[in-house]
């Protein structure tokens, strides 16, 4: 299989980047996108060129480490998939692929395809937890949680923190990410007590990080690899305003 790659190259946060073109041959349709980049890098290194800096770790769609924009698709042209779960059989022979990093003011590019997503950690740190110390917990079955509530909480908690929601949003809003955590914890009896304070602190941090406002275009839900629902944004607004 043959592809022409146009990859965003940027030396560091301070420099300006641009696309560079790399024709690649001898590809296997079963290769994943990161494996294709591994292959490209081997070639670049042998030629004495700087390999493409990109991040990935689990390569099975759960750690949230990878994630690029491929021909305008955030993460993947496939539905509910991460970049690492995208294989070359999703493309046609002789296709041209434009590969670039997620773009958002709050996710500065560090090098090539690597971005800084630590803003997400700070949002969690602001209140994305239940304030229980080790050792304080009561017997697990003393907190009854309905089957459907547990499932719904799981759906929200399934977020992998990849930032696709931000990258696809025209306002670069982190409402889906933040809303999912607020909703996950507010839904559970253990998390109710702090729900209002949590929502305030997290939303304030989200704003402080420079993420944009949510205008409910629902674009985020579409690209989310875990299909986290925008219903969580509604829940967040409810907690924040009336909690």
């Amino acid at each position, binding site marked *: 299989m043959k592809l022409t790659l146009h990859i965003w190259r940027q030396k*560091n946060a301070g420099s300006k980047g641009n696309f560079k073109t790399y024709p690649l041959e001898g590809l*296997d349709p*079963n*290769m994943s996108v*990161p*494996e294709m980049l*591994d*292959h490209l890098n*081997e070639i670049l*290194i*042998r030629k*004495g*060129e*700087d*390999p493409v*800096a990109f991040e*990935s*770790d*689990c*390569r*099975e769609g*759960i*750690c*949230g*480490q990878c994630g690029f924009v491929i021909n305008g698709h955030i993460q993947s042209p496939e539905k509910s998939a991460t970049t690492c*779960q995208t*294989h070359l*059989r999703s493309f046609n022979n002789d296709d041209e692929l434009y590969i670039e990093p997620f773009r958002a003011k709050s996710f500065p590019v*560090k*090098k090539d395809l*690597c971005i800084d*997503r630590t803003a997400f*950690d700070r949002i*969690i*740190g*602001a209140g*994305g*937890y*239940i304030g*229980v*110390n*080790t*050792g304080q*917990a*009561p017997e*697990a*079955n003393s907190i009854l*949680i*309905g*089957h459907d509530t*547990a499932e719904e*909480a*799981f759906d929200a*908690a399934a977020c992998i*923190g990849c930032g696709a929601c931000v990258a696809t949003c025209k306002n670069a809003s982190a409402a889906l990410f933040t809303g999912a955590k607020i909703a*996950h*914890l507010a839904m*559970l009896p*253990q*998390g109710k007590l702090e729900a209002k304070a949590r929502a305030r602190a997290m939303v304030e941090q989200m704003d402080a990080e420079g993420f944009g406002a949510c205008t409910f275009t629902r674009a985020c839900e579409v690209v989310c690899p875990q299909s986290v629902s925008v219903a969580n944004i509604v829940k967040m607004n409810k907690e924040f305003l009336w909690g």
Partner: protein
Amino acid sequence: MLDARIPEGPLELKWTQFKATCLLINPANRRKHKVIVVGTGLAGASCAASLSELGFHVEVFTFHDSARRAHSVAAQGGINAAKNYKNDGDSIWRMFYDTVKGGDFRSREANIYRMAECSMALIDQAVAQGVPFAREYSGYLSNRSFGGVQVSRTFYARGQTGQQLLQGAYQSLMRQQKIGSVVLHTRHEMMDLVVYDNKARGIISRNLDTGEIKSHSADAVVLATGGYGKIYYLSTLAMNCNASAIWRAHKKGAYFAAPSWTQFHPTSLPQMGDYQSKLTLMSESLRNDGRIWVPKKAGDDRKPNDIPENDRDYYLERKYPSFGNLAPRDISSRAAIEQINAGHGAGPLKNAVYLDFKESIDREGKQVIEKRYGNLFNMYEKITGINAYQEPMLISPAAHFSMGGLWVDYGLMSNLKGLFVLGEANFADHGANRLGANSLLQACVDGYFISHYTIMDYLAGNGLSKTDEKGLKEQFDKDTIRVKERLQKLLSIQGDKTPETFHKELGRILYSKCGLLRNAHALQMAREELKNLQQEFHQRLLVAGEAHSINFELEKAARVEDYLQLAPLIVEDALQREESCGAHFREEFQTKEGEALRNDNDFGYVSVWESTEKGEFILHKEHLDFNYVTVSERSYK
């Protein structure tokens, strides 16, 4: 002499006894003690958060860009606890027994008992943090059963149990960071351990964004750096999992136990091509409804659906009639590799066996199977492009979990004082074979419920106030320079082979000669091949880029260099142990029926290795006494 420092008294009171008598530090004085925690997986994050809640000053390091991405995130199936919510006869004792037996009688009774004992509080803790475990319609927690046991003690959150548990630990950690009592260094790799006066006193780190090399001192160091199964290159581990932290500590004097005991998971996806970088795990639960088979005739090239019943060999059902397709991991993996080696392998590379759902689909209907495993079938199709409702899945064993790791005593402290090793990085509870859903538990229990007691006990009595500060500083300076020199050396070779190429070659040697099946002849060959590969590495390594910015190639090079040093020890360990036990199968030592033949008289110990400056390996033995269980042959016939 190795002293595991197991408390006196009856088994069920040892931990109680320890907690009641260990040394404590007054809350006001805890702030004066600094502990470094390397790793933010379940073990590291939970340990750091718990220490910080007590008031200790904690600095945390991870090479990930966020603590949430540690590989604990990838665990699918579940976590065990002896809650006996099913009323099916489970108890601490039964869980303890299952684990000792599952580990093929090669682990310490006291440790395992404690793990089982703490398992219940762990579920309470996780629920309180908001972990959305599966529930019954009545609102009570739900359980399922996992391989190798007869009770249902596994708690789970769909197929993402590790992710959900890790979020609980990560969120607790971030809460402590916000309060200001944890300093978190993401994108920082530990490059070396600093030992002074035979005590762990800090680490040297590399900032992976800027390349800055820096030293950090502390009163104690915790390594919770995960497993090293990635040494086999193709494995179920994440790309960046490594042995470097524990290997560097080993080179500074920390003993390494049972390095060759690696678990191969039976239901991973097979390798499809040379480009492949990892093997994805398919949940073991599939074996509940899938039948495993290979063509009877070696080299049969027909499509699986064209092979009639008579020409199929359901070898697990044939060999283990009572456990069948649910035989334990080590046994299933071994049986598969025997079929593959004998030419019965399936798939384009003839390196897999079939996992067939046709019969269950015919019996129960596609809908039922879809409800049970729909997400797994989707995942399979996403990766392979094959629809498993129509043709059998291809599965194959893959390197998965390291039972081996740094040796620790009952308090999880290495022979180096002040060095604590938690989670998959240590050798402790799993013996020669780990039971499914026990390692999330072990990582959590180590971090939430054990280490803060034992670290406090150490800090209270370690006498660090008498340290010669000048000498300590010199040691830090010396180690910092050494790290810088090492990286420069790797960069300066400028040969023609990338770190990745070496890693792949290393993986091939280990899989073929020190994998599921081992024998003295192959191991001796591996020893030679590894020696050559190591030599070649130092002559032909090619690392792109430079040391002062983001450079993934340099990161890989250093990790591969460590892997290449660890590999000969793995081979040595496998060679020295002239018996078969758990995941360690020496072909020379098997029963007439081809089962593992343990030798308790001569090998009823854990092999604990020391490396000398010259790179020689010295064996120490921790003899295992079984006072509470009867050592027996593990039979699953």
